[in-house]
């Protein structure tokens, strides 16, 4: 199972992953057109302080508390990827309360949002990984 791994040693805190993420979820053609004058709400987010920075996005846990705790059944895990059915989600944020990584966020549309490894928009090629200039975010198979 390929997953997104983050190595803070190489994170520059440039926040590009956030922009590539925000852009990816729109499905738009040109980032300048899509993200101009808006406050982005990415699914991957940088934590930074005192020269340390790292990106956090859904870990697609083996024991996903968000899925188990979801009151609507909107969150589910299939083929190792946790996805959100926005139709079903009513925005109770139990998943926000459950996620040990802080990787689930309220979304502008009233539902929640989380990293779905770009399976809905980019055939499962995470755009944050492509957008990272320093290999701090990688998408790879690491066995168990």
């Amino acid at each position, binding site marked *: 199972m390929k*997953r*997104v*791994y*983050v*190595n*803070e*040693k*190489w994170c520059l805190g440039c926040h590009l992953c956030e922009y590539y993420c925000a852009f990816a979820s729109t499905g738009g053609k040109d980032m300048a057109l899509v993200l101009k004058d808006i406050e982005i709400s990415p699914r991957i987010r940088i*934590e*930074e*302080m005192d020269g*340390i920075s*790292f990106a*956090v996005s859904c*870990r697609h*846990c*083996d*024991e996903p*508390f*968000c899925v*188990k*705790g979801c*009151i*609507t*059944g909107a969150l589910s895990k299939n083929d190792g990827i946790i996805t959100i059915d926005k*139709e*079903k989600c*009513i*925005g*109770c*944020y*139990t*998943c*926000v*309360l*459950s*996620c*040990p*990584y*802080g990787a*689930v*966020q*309220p979304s502008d549309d*009233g539902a929640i949002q989380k990293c779905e490894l770009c399976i809905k928009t980019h055939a499962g090629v995470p755009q944050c990984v492509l957008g990272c200039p320093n290999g701090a975010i*990688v998408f790879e198979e*690491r066995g168990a």
Partner: protein
Amino acid sequence: MCSGLSQRSNRVRGKGCLSMQYVIIGNSTAAVGAVEAIRRNDKEGSIVIISNESHHVYSRPLISYLLLGKTDEHRMKYRGDNFYRDNKCELMLNKTAVRIEPEKKQVILDDGTSVSYDKLLVCTGSSPFVPPMPGLDEVKNKFTFYTLDDARALDNVLKENMKVLIVGAGLIGLKCAEGISKKNVEITCVDLAPKVLSSILDEESSAIVKGHLEEHNIKFYLKQQIAKFEGNIAYLSDNTEIEFDVLVLAVGVRPNISLIKDIGGKTNRGIIIDERCRTSIPDIYAAGDCSESIDISSEEAKVMALLPNAYMQGECAGMNMSGVDFVFDKAFPMNSIGLFGLHIMTAGTYTGEVYSDSEQKNYKKLFYSNNRLNGFILIGNIEKAGIYTSLIRERTPLDTLNFELICKMPGLMAFSRKTRAEKLGGIKNESIGA
């Protein structure tokens, strides 16, 4: 393993190679958790689900969202239409289990028939509790607010400008208030407790929530009891008269424990279960709102009627029923609710020292003692609240992280570099990176 659930893989079959018969009484969250766990281990055994309702499994907490129009009866199904077929479950709707005969290993239904089991799960949930109130019998439009049928019935009578009296300013009462607010009705809420959401909020936070609800035109009479009803007028203990068209009773719920209690199984408020969700009777498990287990944040036995717990207990029961030793010992209260756009999150127990930080409708209180986080209350800014939750769930020693920082803002930054490397997977990357 990333969670607190531990698992040992020593599958044992009850009766040699014969196919197992699993029976589940109840058709809600815990039942789904159990079915999904059983099917992970046993693709063949038969599963019978007995439900006294007539519906495909739905999410009970969604009934208020149904009235609000945020969901509909199709979308509020907790699992897809093919759930029972895909998991090879036999669903018996509109049947009530009236008795268990543990010696014969069978369940007797209200129609006199019996269903035999190898492993039985009782997840009967709870029922609204209506205390005796003089004159209540004569009130015409009175409802509880617990099931889909309750919600449909209430929805049918509500009309614009009606006056609705809700007895109970707890979770159910207030979610009901929000749910029906769209109908342009006048809502009054009465509660014996001196504050709203008294079971999960402290005074300050409760006051914030109450103020917010009042901004949305909900009227409160707190620390008040209903002395009597006379037709469509309620008289409070201080003689206040409240006229209403519709009455909603949301005083509280009681776990449905009789099936186990009647046959001598250990019960308290709920059915007592161990960390493998076993009752005191062999081969009978219990899970969800009807059960009582240890709250790790207070180390006391409690009924924790919460959907996430119900699922995880059901899952734990299902794992053990299908022969995989599985422990769920991470139960604790947690609630996430939105009321008119204001989000409230609470978890654990409110004991110990307090860190607090509030500003208008943003409110934060963390409770800690003995180097552990016991509980928290958040209102407004609920970003990354799950990180606090995980500190309770994992009983994380607070001296292993930057507690001062995490108090201010939950984040992985407060953990050690090594912990972060493990959590985000970078630790292996570093070894690759030489």
